């Protein structure tokens, strides 16, 4: 498993590749003449105030200029409320804010081209809500029609779902091989498989972590345990394969139990990812979380304290983040082409630095890095992490 090349598993099924290619070709045409407007100013009059009570939905304007609309929604009722901006058909949702408790305020920011819309407050979160018409007048801050945009998002989530499935299957295959070697006491083989197999986990870590029970069973570090908690999973095996001084090795029976549990838990994980519903914000947030993982765990060498294979995890986290970004990129280019370009550049810069730590198919051991090298990596992670954190809002708003 090459650690520092583009992951082969970035491949997506042929039909999906075709639809991606079509989307990429379509984008420049749609964007022509529009890129200067990607930072449309806020509504001239500032936020549109919405006051939701148990029986009323007061919207401070009935007509606003097109562009970025900010609705400042205050719940003055006694029920939990929601606010929606709907298309003229009263069905398609352009934006919503949910779960506004009594007395609380929340903003909805949505980009709306000229047209007729429907606003709706939904006190009690039931029924059709209290509706009114909202006219959005042409202001020059026009956006391309977004029918294609939804298609781009759908393509992105389909592609990412394939990626998660593919990584999960490779993780299972690798885990079975690793577990067999580990249980059999073939430490050399197990050590050789350890980092490369974990990369499949690390690439889809936010998805894996969303299963709150499986994550600690498979990936808990010793420091994460509470007194008396049973320790299983990858890092339990790591300590046995890369033992610190004074460590007492596991018995064959203990190794078998750990190995069997890892395989069973991984099967469970793969099974659950098959039915996981993936939305566009999960891609954006997942990419951000992967970079967070790098920034707080991998770049500091805290993840793999015995094997020092942190850079393998680092590379895999970056792979996973980049795949999510690449999947969203056609949609992002429509909304914020400058952000897409900036992310391209910063992913490339980080990858170039990581490439200097490749040793054939392997990654340099973390304990061989100089403090200066760690600092360079960390600063590239931050340089990428900051704009990456804007990805979700850019495509989902």
């Amino acid at each position: 498993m090459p650690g520092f090349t583009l992951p082969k598993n970035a491949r997506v099924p042929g039909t999906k590749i075709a639809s991606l290619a079509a989307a990429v070709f379509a984008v420049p045409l749609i964007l022509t003449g529009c890129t200067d407007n990607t930072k449309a100013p806020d509504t001239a009059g500032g936020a549109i105030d919405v006051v939701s009570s148990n029986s009323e939905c007061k919207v401070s304007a009935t007509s606003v200029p097109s562009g970025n609309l900010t609705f400042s929604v205050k719940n003055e009722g006694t029920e939990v409320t929601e606010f929606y901006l709907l298309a003229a058909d009263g069905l398609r949702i352009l934006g919503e804010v949910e779960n506004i408790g009594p007395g609380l305020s929340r903003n909805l920011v949505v980009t709306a081209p000229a047209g007729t819309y429907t606003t709706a407050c939904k006190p009690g979160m039931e029924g059709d809500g209290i509706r009114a018409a909202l006219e959005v007048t042409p202001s020059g801050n026009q956006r391309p029609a977004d029918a294609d945009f939804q298609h781009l998002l759908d393509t992105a989530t389909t592609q990412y779902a394939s990626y998660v499935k593919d990584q999960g299957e490779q993780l299972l295959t690798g885990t079975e091989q690793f577990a067999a070697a580990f249980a059999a006491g073939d430490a050399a083989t197990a050590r050789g498989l350890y980092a490369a197999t974990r990369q499949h986990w690390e690439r889809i870590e936010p998805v894996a972590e969303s299963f709150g029970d499986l994550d600690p069973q498979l990936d808990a570090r010793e420091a994460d345990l509470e007194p008396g908690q049973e320790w299983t999973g990858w890092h339990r095996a790591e300590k046995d394969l890369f033992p610190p001084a004074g460590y007492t090795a596991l018995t064959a029976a203990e190794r078998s139990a750990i190995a069997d549990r890892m395989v069973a838990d991984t099967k469970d994980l793969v099974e659950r990812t098959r039915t996981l519903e993936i939305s566009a914000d999960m891609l954006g947030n997942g990419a951000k979380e992967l970079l967070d993982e790098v920034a707080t765990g991998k770049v500091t060498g805290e993840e793999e304290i015995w094997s020092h294979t942190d850079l393998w995890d680092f590379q895999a986290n970056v792979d996973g983040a980049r795949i999510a970004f690449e999947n969203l990129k056609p949609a992002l280019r429509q909304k914020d082409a400058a952000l897409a370009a900036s992310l391209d550049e910063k992913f490339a810069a980080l990858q170039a630095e990581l490439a200097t730590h490749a040793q054939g198919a392997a990654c340099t051991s973390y304990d061989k890095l100089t403090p200066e090298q760690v600092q360079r990596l960390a600063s590239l992670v931050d340089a990428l992490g900051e704009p990456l954190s804007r990805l979700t809002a850019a495509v989902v708003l």
Partner: protein
Amino acid sequence: MTGCPFSGRAPEASEPATGPASAQAPLDPENGERPTAGARLSRRGLFGIAGLGGAAAGLAAGFLGHDAVAASAAPPAADSPVVPFHGDHQAGITAPAQDRLHMAAFDVTTTKREELIQLLKDWTRAAEALAEGRPAGATGAVDGPYGAPPEDTGEALDLNAGKLTLTFGFGAGLFEKDGVPRFGLDGRRPEALIDLPHFPGDDLDPARSGGDLVVQACADDPQVAVHAIRNLARIGFGKVRVRWSQLGFGRTSSTTRAQQTPRNLFGFKDGTNNLKVEDDQLLDQHVWATAGRPEDAWLAGGSYLVARRIRMHIETWDRTSLGEQEGLIGRTKGTGAPLSGGEEFTEPDFTRQGKGGKPLIPLDSHMRMAHPSQNSGVRMLRRGYNYTDGSDGVGHLDAGLFFIAFVTDPRSHYVPMQMAMAKGDTLAVEYLKHTGSGLFAVPGGVKPGGFIGDGLFA
């Protein structure tokens, strides 16, 4: 009032002395300042003095530690910069949380009981003076012999007392080291002064943890707090050495209802639900230690101080959406209202449901996990401070919360809650890392003429 940053009147020259119990001039009730002797330069400049006798006695009184009589004769006004040192409880627990912190933990290096006792006496005398805005030692920073180093280090000259409180605590290491009792304190270690367990995710630095003695210096002026710790450390040379010290630049808790709730480095109001000094009965129940065994009588009016240095991953936090931030905390960022609705001090409604039947205050939110209703009703008096300590070496600020809590018993009032939060509070798991830790038994207040923890050595 040249040299005095606070407005207030200078004491009248004709003001009568308070009597034979203390010939020292009383505190000015408005500014808490004390006129000082003759040519002696006080921390806040030169003042007139009632007479030569008063001057001489004043020096003696300061040295002998009879100041409290004067203090009780003229209790400081509410806006006075002086917080009384003496009392049933040590100062610095229920006193309105000051803006700045300097806390230091010490290893005791002497093995002699009498040297330890003398140190505690010396610290008491110094603390009495510092709390009143006077310099350490009889001759202060500039009134000693020209050929000798000054007794006080001097950086607090011209500053008032700044509401300085000094709170002292005893770590387990004072009672025993490696299983061997120290200082004749065999069997005296309180049962509640446990060794804290490992909490999930702990990454404790031994150089930032533990300590045989601790001093919490809180003041509204950081220079005053640092001056206090520095002078106590200096007095201790040869008997103690500084193990770790921590500056806190901004309070993160309120201890009175008059104070506005401050914000932590996540930008959220912190300690909305903190115990307040007005909660008399709750303080008895949750803060003041109970002397369970006869040999623990010195703990009456005392407490236990839990200190945790909590690094916050502020860089990744700042990349998190407002919606996620509020969900992790369980309150709104603007007003601090619980997500179930209302205003900051509205009681949270943990059962109130939003979209899809999910609770408005998420199950893994910090506020829910920390709430008394989730923790067998236990409360803490929190007195933490925001800190930044330079960089972490990889381009981030080493910043976070220096958590301080006073509790009646850490076994019931800290360990179970922290164990649950270290596992289940997503905020703690993703964005916090505990890097330092200390637990100290805080003796009851010091009586005039007594010294810190004197009951333990009686």
